[in-house]
């Protein structure tokens, strides 16, 4: 069955810079923004843009991610033709077939899947960005430019441009040069890692790339430069709006704090572009007599009897009387007992903070070199009155957390 455009979502990365948060799950499955997981953003964008066929390429720790996506019903991606498909690496005839070597190789290995839908265009997405984007506008730009590839770009402050892959464009926004993390950037148009390709062209370049033993089989490093050198029309699509890469602890924490500013970050309450997610069956949350909340998000099944400021509470979190939560992210099932203090911290799923314990600290109370967001991996238990310093990174062993 033919589809005009299908999406391929690269979700196999480990996200090693998120440390404890991704030691057991792939980065796209990391909880984000109160109810979501990172992958909900590109998946919802697809559905809202009218793309109903999505291949999700998994490799690192796929269990939780595959389980979360299921048959795709939360995103309306349970379709009779198309819908969401999990695409892990697989063994091929004669014991061929390998792990996905790079982003381009992952797509190369799934050319059979793409051919099932005989698409004119293929959209390449990654599972580590928080943003709302209408991919149909990107596709329109691609068609209008008659391009082989259209790259979504974001204008970043010039002084930060050297941290990104920079696209240098002519007056028609056609890319003539691509520079990865240039020391002297010529423009401030950063690639967002979102590409749309004319499938017949991409197919050609993927096959050539695979035959090149020197290639690292990566889109940004190999395929895009190869297409550019061959003189293909590469268009830029200027995106304006909220976009954040949540690949590091600091940017992940920042992006969650951005969500709190109802009117500045990604606008979650905007009904015209909803972000969908899979949620467990839970009753409404309860704020007790002693609970106080300010500038915070609270989700289903929570019980709040303590003080919560500038924080994001995922579902089924419990905050005891006298406990204080400030500038923190509490993932599903976290329990904070009476009088505990949690500041500038990320607590992963099912962590338990004992009575009077202390996790993290405000930057004003610590020398700058010692300060950082404290991170507890899933299932970590902090004993009563134990102190976890800022910048700590704890992971649970079989019995309990250790530093």
């Amino acid at each position, binding site marked *: 069955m033919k589809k005009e455009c299908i999406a391929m979502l690269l979700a196999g990365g480990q996200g090693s810079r998120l440390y404890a948060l991704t030691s057991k799950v792939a980065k796209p499955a990391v909880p984000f923004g109160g109810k979501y997981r990172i992958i909900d953003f590109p998946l919802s964008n697809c559905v809202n843009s009218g793309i109903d066929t999505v291949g999700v390429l998994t490799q690192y720790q796929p269990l939780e991610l595959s389980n979360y996506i299921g048959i795709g019903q939360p995103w309306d991606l349970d379709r009779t033709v198309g819908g969401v498909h999990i695409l892990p690496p697989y063994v091929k005839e004669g014991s061929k077939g390998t792990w996905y070597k790079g982003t381009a190789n992952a797509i190369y290995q799934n050319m059979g899947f793409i051919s099932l839908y005989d698409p004119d265009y293929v959209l390449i997405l990654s599972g580590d960005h928080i943003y709302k984007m209408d991919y149909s506008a990107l596709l329109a730009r691609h068609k209008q430019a008659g391009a082989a590839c259209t790259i979504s770009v974001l204008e970043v402050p010039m002084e930060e441009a050297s941290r990104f892959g920079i696209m240098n464009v002519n007056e028609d926004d056609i890319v003539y040069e691509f520079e990865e993390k240039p020391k002297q950037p010529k423009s401030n148009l950063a690639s967002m890692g979102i590409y749309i390709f004319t499938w017949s062209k991409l197919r050609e370049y993927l096959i050539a790339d695979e035959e090149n033993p020197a290639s690292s089989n990566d889109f940004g490093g190999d395929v895009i430069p190869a297409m550019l050198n061959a003189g293909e029309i590469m268009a830029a699509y200027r995106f304006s709006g909220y976009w954040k890469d949540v690949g590091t602890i600091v940017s992940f924490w920042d992006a969650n704090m951005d969500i709190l500013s109802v009117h500045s970050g990604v606008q979650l309450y905007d009904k015209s572009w*909803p972000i969908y997610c899979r949620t467990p069956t839970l009753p409404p949350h309860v704020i007790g007599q002693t609970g106080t*909340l300010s500038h915070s998000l609270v989700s289903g099944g929570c019980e709040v009897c303590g003080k919560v400021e500038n924080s994001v*509470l995922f579902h089924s979190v419990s905050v005891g009387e006298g406990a204080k939560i400030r500038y923190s992210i509490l993932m599903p099932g976290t329990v904070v007992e009476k009088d505990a203090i949690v500041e500038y911290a990320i607590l992963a799923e099912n962590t338990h903070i004992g009575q009077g314990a202390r996790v993290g600290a405000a930057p004003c109370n610590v020398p700058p070199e010692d300060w950082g967001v404290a991170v507890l991996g899933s299932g970590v238990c902090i004993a009563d009155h134990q102190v976890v310093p800022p910048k700590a990174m704890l992971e649970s062993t079989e019995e309990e957390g250790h530093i």
Partner: protein
Amino acid sequence: MNNLHGILFTYQSNANLRELTEHRTIASIPYGGQYRIIDFMLSNFVNAGITDVGVLMHESYQSLLDHLGSGKDWDLSRKWGGLKILPPFAYAKKRGSGEFRGEMEALGGVYTYLQQIRQEYVILSTCDLVANLPIADFFESHLKSGADITAVCTHTPIAAPESATYFSIGPDGLVSDVLCGGHKSLDCESLDIYILSKSLLLSLIDYCVSHNLTSFSRDVLLGMGHSLSIHPCFYDGYAARIQSKTAYYSKSIELFDPTVRASLFRPDQPIRTKDRWDPSTYYGPDAQVEDALVADGCIIEGTVKNSILFRGVRIKKGASVENCILMQDTSIQEDAVLRCVIADKSVTVHSGRMLMGHESYPLVLAKGQSV
């Protein structure tokens, strides 16, 4: 437990619920922040392993249809069985318009449906009960008792006596007398949940339809009680019956009691409801909240005390809401003051308005009103 088929009567609308049932039946009244009353019984069925449920409806059922959809949210969207909506078409052909006069008449309208169900036993229930019930235990008790009919009942009266059915229990432990429509509550009250075999149900319907008998409690339990063995199965946990505006209000407020919440919202027997897309609830820098049950998708920037907020409610800065129940997508603008108000779906209270009801007579704002 696949041998039990669920039947829900959802056509009751009650004059005492006034504005709340103007556009809907009791079954689809919003309750507890995100539920409709039918969610409780439907979830009870599903949690007991019941796979096939027939929902009988009559008039004002648009809101119910919209809520139930394909039954997907209760895991009842199935190729075979699952949720079956039973509108009153067969009945309307025979009798013309007018509400069902009783359960037996309603069941008579879906006789062929009942003939075709694949289970040997049927559980009948109304949809005005808020409770998390161990239906599987009731069924086991029915099978063990060997009785013709099992009636689920409670020792703690919860209904208005005029509309309740009471039982006297004989020395053999079976129901010896049935009392309907009296003025005094007795200590063995029916929860209007009955289990019986499909074959017995079909023969009872046959008899009732041909004798112009309509009510299950009056015509079957009372009228034929001498020839049927009725086994009482007691449930004395939390149950609330929503039969009037004041009951709706006072029973809702009981949800602030942690023991009530613990018995209704059990992780092992979750109450399922229709899914929406709402994000988490946001509390602004000036929010002041004390004792509140709040669903997802709200933006709260004012003061909320002792209140239940459904999905998507907006409380603007300076607004103050106390002892209120605000249903989904209701918006309370700046500096408005509400006390003891039940606001139905999508109500807007403009800035500076002051609305006061009383615990004994809450003020009800009808769906979509703008004040």
